[in-house]
């Protein structure tokens, strides 16, 4: 290690704007942080929302009709779309992480390719679900 490197203040803490705008995250890093973001969103509020939908829709014919009408509202559709993305991204990225745990695709090139595939496939699945909703 050169003396110039050794004199730099370490550890270096980064602000959120620096992470977002100054540093170019490699694709696997985007998949990783989005895995966290989508996971947190799924825990709250999406699981609570889905349990509410399941509860009301199974309760009675009237409840089912109410939920069907409610899910037709534009804001509810937007919520469903965001949920679909969070679920698809978390699922696809999770499968990638399981494969990485099994030492599959851990070379740099393969890892970058698989992270691009995760981002594209989850967005494509979200778009497909969006088409089904609208």
């Amino acid at each position, binding site marked *: 290690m050169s003396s110039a490197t050794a004199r730099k203040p370490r550890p270096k803490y980064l602000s959120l704007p620096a992470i977002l705008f100054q540093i170019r995250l490699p694709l696997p890093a985007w998949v990783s942080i989005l895995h966290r973001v989508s*996971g*947190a969103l799924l825990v709250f509020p999406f699981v609570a929302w889905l*349990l509410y939908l399941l509860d009301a829709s199974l309760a009675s014919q009237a409840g*089912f009709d109410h939920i069907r009408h409610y899910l037709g509202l534009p804001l509810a559709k937007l919520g469903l779309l965001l949920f679909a993305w969070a679920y698809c991204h978390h699922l696809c990225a999770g499968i990638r992480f399981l494969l990485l745990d099994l030492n599959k695709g851990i070379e740099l090139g393969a890892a970058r390719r698989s992270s691009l595939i995760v981002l594209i496939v989850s967005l494509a699945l979200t778009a497909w679900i969006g088409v089904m909703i609208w």
Partner: protein
Amino acid sequence: MNKRVITGAHYGTRDWLAQRITAVIMVVYTVIVFVCVLGGKPMGYAVWRDLFAQGWMRVATLLFVASLAWHAWVGVRDILMDYIKPDGLRLALQVLTILLLGAYVAWTIQVLWR
């Protein structure tokens, strides 16, 4: 390999493994539900109710939510350990997380066996 022996510490291996096993359980359930909903009859109240009236579907759904709670506990705890530095606040958020996930499981049982 870390050979230190400190009573009660698992060095995260058990949580790490549990998170992955529960992930696989949830993938399987996701595929089953997708096939049932898209491959079945046009969705109406009767079809929807009958789907969740079956014993295996209730058990599978409860297993899914239980897996989700365990999986999410490991994940949320990791996030809180990474970003929340004050011990008191982190403990409070961890307790809230446990209460939330426990409520999810209880709510699921209530909805399925009503």
